[in-house]
């Protein structure tokens, strides 16, 4: 019965109705609000899908152009700014060769303060609970474990939205923010978890300390580290960092 309705819509849009059917169609549009509403959606969908699929390739090409321009005008600017301090070195290479970071540390941070990068060794993201959206989860794992935090954050946020209670996901979201220097967002998430009672309570406390460390707020970092009790996994690391502060 309803299928007939959609066939009529299709015929109307293709101008295939006989004058008799046409008169009936227009009568329905006035008399039947549901008919009218569905027809309007149907018509809007037809236009929208038509345009979307017709322009699919153009969209892909445009996105490629925009990504390049973005890199040129937005990303390079930030890279330039950040390399100012260590202009002798290629910033990108630095990111890749984490081992060199220690050397640079001697150069730049010669005041003896410990560097965030010395302590930011994240455990790989591995989802233990599998379910729907396996593909999204694998992509998130891959992005995070290859340090592509922008992409990881996007995916993790999507997954997180579906299951807000999953503390581990929220923790990894926080790590992404931290890596991307969105300190407020990172701190907010870590705070929430460390104030809770989950298995990740102290891991989140540790990361909260790292958030301060990265911003060179050493006092706050110290105070946070002191709240990590001896019985926890994070204790040893926390002590190691405390000694250097």
């Amino acid at each position: 019965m309803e299928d007939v309705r959609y066939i009529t819509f299709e015929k109307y849009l293709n101008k295939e109705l006989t004058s008799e059917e046409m008169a009936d169609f227009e009568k329905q549009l006035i008399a039947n609000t549901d008919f009218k509403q569905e027809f309007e959606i149907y018509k809007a969908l037809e236009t929208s899908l038509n345009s979307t699929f017709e322009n699919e390739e153009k969209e892909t090409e445009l996105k490629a152009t925009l990504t390049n321009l973005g890199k040129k005008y937005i990303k390079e600017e930030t890279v330039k700014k950040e390399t100012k301090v260590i202009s002798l070195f290629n910033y990108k290479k630095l990111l890749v060769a984490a081992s060199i970071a220690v050397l640079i540390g001697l150069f730049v941070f010669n005041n003896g303060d410990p560097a965030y990068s010395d302590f930011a060794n994240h455990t790989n993201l591995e989802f233990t609970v599998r379910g729907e959206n396996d593909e999204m989860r694998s992509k998130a794992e891959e992005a995070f474990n290859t340090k592509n935090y922008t992409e990881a954050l996007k995916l993790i946020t999507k997954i997180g939205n579906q299951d807000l209670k999953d503390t581990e996901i929220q923790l990894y979201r926080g790590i992404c923010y931290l890596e991307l220097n969105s300190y407020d967002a990172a701190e907010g998430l870590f705070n929430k978890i460390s104030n809770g009672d989950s298995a990740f309570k102290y891991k989140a406390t540790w990361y909260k300390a790292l958030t301060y460390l990265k911003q060179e707020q050493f006092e706050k970092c110290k105070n946070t580290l002191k709240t990590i009790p001896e019985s926890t996994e994070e204790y040893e690391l926390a002590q190691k960092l405390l000694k250097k502060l």
Partner: protein
Amino acid sequence: MSIKKHADHIYIEALLKNDSRVLSKVYERFSPKIVAMVKKNSGCADDAQDIIQETLVTIFHQASEKNFILTCPFDAYFYLLCKRKWLNELKKRGNKRVTIVEDVTSITEEQEQQVEETEIFEQQHQLFELKFKELGQKCQELLKTTFKIKSMEKVAEALGVTYGYARKKKSQCMGQLTKLVKASNEFQQLNSY
């Protein structure tokens, strides 16, 4: 009623033509302000880049589908779109403090209207895309082929079914999609505009 194109409509045309020379001007002229706004409000350069790109792609869709004509300066229109998009993103990320540090930009009613038009277009576009993905694999395939190939005879041929069956299936799938859209919360909201 004749709508008067603003001189900045060249940027819309550049999106349609993928004209990287003119588009580079968009980045050069308009992106610094947006990057600064995002950074001031707990984001980073990458976030700004995503927001800018997504906004431009939306304008591209609106221009291709609805023949969107820009009647006000691009600057304020674009900035406001990006700002509101970033605000939404912050909300999505669960950020409590979502009042954006305000810089004084005076906005005319006309600009406001164009911004809203684009936003409503985007919401609808996203809703349709989302619901499309909820359809069964067969329907998605059939509709995609239909809209790409246009001629139903050729669609039938490509899918190895009869012409009559292809047409009937198309209207059935479109009907399913119509019902999905109608039942969604987002549609109820959009409709109340």
